[in-house]
């Protein structure tokens, strides 16, 4: 079972709340996904308003609420948003996103590290969204983040895991759970992430804009299961040559 900062998660699929055609479709898709952690952009919600269209649809008993700082241009903005969220009852958990380029929404490594350091000191449970940079991942773990969220490819692109070699290194070196986030466009992509040993994945766009988001959520959940089970069973090595199923090595010379 997956544990992050002492909390147990039965599902290794995390969900998002953006881009859905309605709050109801979002709710149904999240339920179908079986996820237990849901990220919400702080810019998108009004925490002070109990009738907020997204928040009123999310059962906080069922889902751990993971506010994110998407849109923050630097560490100061991210830290300010985090404090506001916590003060308004948003809790301690935070998906740290510092995305100064509004076009690619790629994360700023320097500002992310700076913000993480400060937020960890302020007792936030920080899950930073980063480019798949193994050294940055280590530096963030050193300052005390609860997980690492490297991207597979730029957000919303459905390109799958283009950063595979770096993510493999991050997983190999990790002391905290690794959640592959962003760019996962098909169930096969998340299966791949799970097969190489990622602890979890976060999927939003591919579910939200699917023809049938509820069905797609189910498909992603199944792929996460399949990939994880494969990883736990021990996948065979890839080979460039054909190999016989029953090896015939001549060992007759042995005495």
């Amino acid at each position, binding site marked *: 079972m997956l544990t992050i900062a002492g909390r147990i998660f039965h599902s290794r699929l995390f969900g998002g709340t*953006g*881009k*859905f*055609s*309605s*709050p109801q479709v979002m709710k149904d898709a999240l339920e179908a996904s079986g996820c237990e952690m849901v990220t919400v*952009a*702080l*810019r*998108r*919600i*009004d925490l002070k308003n109990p009738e907020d*269209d997204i928040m009123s649809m999310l059962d906080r008993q069922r889902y751990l609420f993971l506010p994110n700082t998407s*849109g*923050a*241009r630097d560490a*100061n*903005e991210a830290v*300010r*948003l985090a404090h*506001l969220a916590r003060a308004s009852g948003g809790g301690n958990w935070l998906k740290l996103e510092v995305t*100064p*380029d*509004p*076009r690619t929404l790629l994360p700023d490594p320097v500002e992310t590290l700076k913000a993480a350091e400060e937020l960890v000191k302020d007792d936030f449970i920080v899950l930073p969204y980063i480019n798949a940079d193994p050294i940055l991942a280590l530096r963030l773990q050193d300052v005390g983040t609860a997980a690492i969220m490297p991207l597979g490819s730029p957000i*919303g*692109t*459905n390109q799958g895991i283009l950063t595979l070699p770096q993510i493999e290194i991050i997983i190999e070196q990790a002391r905290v759970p690794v959640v592959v986030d962003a760019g996962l466009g098909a169930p096969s992509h998340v299966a791949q992430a799970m097969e190489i040993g990622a602890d979890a994945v976060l999927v939003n*766009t591919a579910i*939200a*804009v699917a023809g049938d988001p509820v069905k797609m959520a189910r498909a992603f959940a199944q792929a996460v299961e399949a990939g994880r089970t494969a990883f736990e069973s021990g996948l065979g090595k890839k080979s460039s040559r054909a190999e016989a199923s029953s090896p015939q090595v001549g060992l007759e010379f042995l005495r």
Partner: protein
Amino acid sequence: MFQIPDFKELQRLVDGADEAEVRRALQSNHVGINGLAALLSPAAESLLPELAARSVEITAQRFGNTIQIYAPLYLSNFCVNRCAYCGFSAENKISRRMLTLEEAEQETMILHNREINHLLLVSGEAPARLGVDYLEELARRLRDRFASITIEVQPLETEEYRRLFEAGITGVAVYQETYDRRIYTDVHLAGKKCDFDYRLEVPAKVAAAGMREVGIGALLGLSDWRLEGFALGMHLAWLRRQYWQTALSVSFPRLRPAAGDFEPLVTVSERNLSQLLFALRIFDPDVGLVLSTREEARYRDGMIGLAPTRYSAGSCTAPGGYSQPELEGEQFSVGDLRTISQVCQDIKRRGCDPVRKDWDSTFQAA
């Protein structure tokens, strides 16, 4: 500094495109400036459904099934410029009014109660009456009540934009009106706005001041819409390279009936406007595309999910018009008369989520 090639030069590129180039642009993930020319060309007209399909795909991917809702607040219709097409033009005999800060606040309360979170403050250009001090004070009074506050007023200098940013203004819209230098000179008859090059530099000043978003635009009905679209694309690409932290949006106001009875110099049909929207979406997947209440409800409903990302709703274009709907002195007559909640209902009916809040005042330090 950004420079616009002569319209004749642009014309050659747009007119020269053939259907094969349009198809290539439709299949490309990185449509360059030549691809944009092809998408805007007459050769693309017969492929409008293909353009629409590509635009739908990109819009859903990048923005999801959502439309952001905003409302304008007209602060003043005093104007020192004489612009042939505008209802606020200095020589027009309309009733003039500028809201006091208190009146402006009252008007915003009406919008706030209608659950508007994204506010656009608009005024004519009369800096001696309505200047930076007024805007700064108003922004400070409003910043906690709205998720974002954008202005569409006279051009300011970088330092002034910086002051307003610190006061809580998040973005600035400043339209070139037309990128066709010759026509620009013809329709701008008096006032500072006559200076084409001065105006062309303003979006860069806004971005340099650190504003979150710059909105650029062209008024459709003055010059060839294909070339305006091409120039807008060039302007976008230039701004992206220079100011990578600034979000960009584009408006395409088609000329509406207004005081002064200006007749559009060219006709821009709904098909033309749609082609322009699709072409820019395909050229720049991340740009915000604004479709205001200048357009009729039927057209705006039809365009949901196809390219635009932002709709105004329940707009009144006369200062003080929200609290006194019978007031005169509007900038143009609105084409979509539905209320905000009606617009949102119709967006939902089309399978899209009308997003009331997609920013937060907390981003900017108070």
